[in-house]
């Protein structure tokens, strides 16, 4: 779980939104793919497509030893009302200080109260968690009564 790569993705998506891009690519790793699918479920991005550095795939190309370095995930960004739908995205756990939380603290955060060093969620904000059962949005994790490592918060 490289948080360094995730941090780069967060900044990259913020920059793309500010530049009003329609399509962008991020490194294709397992963690990033899961978070991107989570973002799509929450409606922050319109599409997640497999692809390479040259562009999204038109047909399925399996990842092999030869092409693994050039594999990318292509994302469709969304805009509504002349504003980007995804405007802020930042890490909560840092490479040097990772943050884990149980359901009780997560409950507080969803209510908008801070827990520990983590500030509460603002209206419309999402928080992604890495758990032993996969990557979840915080509200779904609470529903399943599981805690985990706080990865990033999105707005």
């Amino acid at each position, binding site marked *: 779980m490289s948080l360094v790569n995730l941090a780069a993705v967060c900044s990259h998506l913020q920059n793309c939104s500010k530049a009003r891009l329609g399509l962008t690519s991020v490194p294709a790793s397992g963690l990033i793919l*899961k978070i991107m*699918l*989570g973002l*799509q*479920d*929450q*409606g*922050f991005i319109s599409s997640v497509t497999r692809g390479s550095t040259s562009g999204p795939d038109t047909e399925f190309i399996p990842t092999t030893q030869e092409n693994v370095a050039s594999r990318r995930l292509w994302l469709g960004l*969304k*805009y*509504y*009302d002349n*504003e980007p*739908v995804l405007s802020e995205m930042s890490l909560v756990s840092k490479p040097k200080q990772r943050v884990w939380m149980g359901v009780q603290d997560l409950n507080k955060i969803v209510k908008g109260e801070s827990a520990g060093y983590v500030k509460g969620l*603002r*209206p*419309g904000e999402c928080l992604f968690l890495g758990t032993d059962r*996969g*990557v*979840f949005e915080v509200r*779904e994790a609470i529903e399943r009564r599981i805690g985990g490592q706080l990865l990033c918060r999105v707005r």
Partner: protein
Amino acid sequence: MSVTRPLARLRSAVTPFLQAPGARTFTTSPASHLRRRPSPREIISSMGRELAPETAPYTETELESLRRHFSPEQVQALLAGEKAIDRHDFELRSERRRGDPWGLSYVTDLSTIDPILDFAPTKHGFEAEGITVPKRNVPGIQDPYVTFQDDDADSTLFKKLAQRTGMQEKDLKGLQTRLMVTHSVTNQTRMGKIRKIYALAVAGNGNGLLGIGEGKSVESEDAIRQATYMAMRNMEPIPRYEGRTIFGNVKAKNGAVEMELFARPPGYGVRCSSHIFEMCRCLGISDLSARVTRSRNPMNVIKTFMQALKSQKLPETIARGRGRKLVDARKVYYGGSV
């Protein structure tokens, strides 16, 4: 990742935004006139049975279905009520009107006389055949020695404002206005300094409208009048949560002023600097706290506050942007009475 979520993505259709006619709502719950309990007759018809004419008494099958939905006492009361009413009245009855029973179905102000609508059309306008547009009256020659006293400056100002904004003069006069900043400014020319007075005013109706205006003139009174006029003219609707605070926390930056606004619970009060406090009074916000960092120049603080209020992201907009459905749980659980 859950297996069920891709399905949820498919059915994320946005529900139509129900609105009361002519009203802008900031909530997701339907307007009160759209919430209505079905009548016993509607229950029967929704069950697929043919509806008997209104005047006919209930048939045995209808009674049976009513008994299924209502307790025996209720059915008894229902039948007793129907028996007590003359069958002829059933033909005449109409649906009960919700809300104010004496309210007009259109917006008007009956306290003023409308120059066109309140007078019967004169005959001469339509005398000639084929002419659809009324003729203009020939202006009479006025006595040059008789001068009419013109209305004072304030009244013409309100008349002009009413024409521009489409608001009633009465409403305009009831607006709250505050003079926020005045200071003298100078323009250095080669002839020397030209001094003028600058004024900044805010105006609001205490119920969701707020505007700021600036004026500049040699006379301070003139500058203030200009600023007030512009503030009233620039008024625009500001979204408020429950009519008392803002939607979430807002950050704004304008020049060297940086500002953070925080939504607060009921009864908290407006704990802000004086300029923001006054603007909240005009707007009708009762719970708010603000933090103004860096520059605290009054003029720029006022402008930034206005900008911050306008940059609020409404939950409705966020939900629309993400293609998700938004429901206010309180409105669902308390029967929409909150």
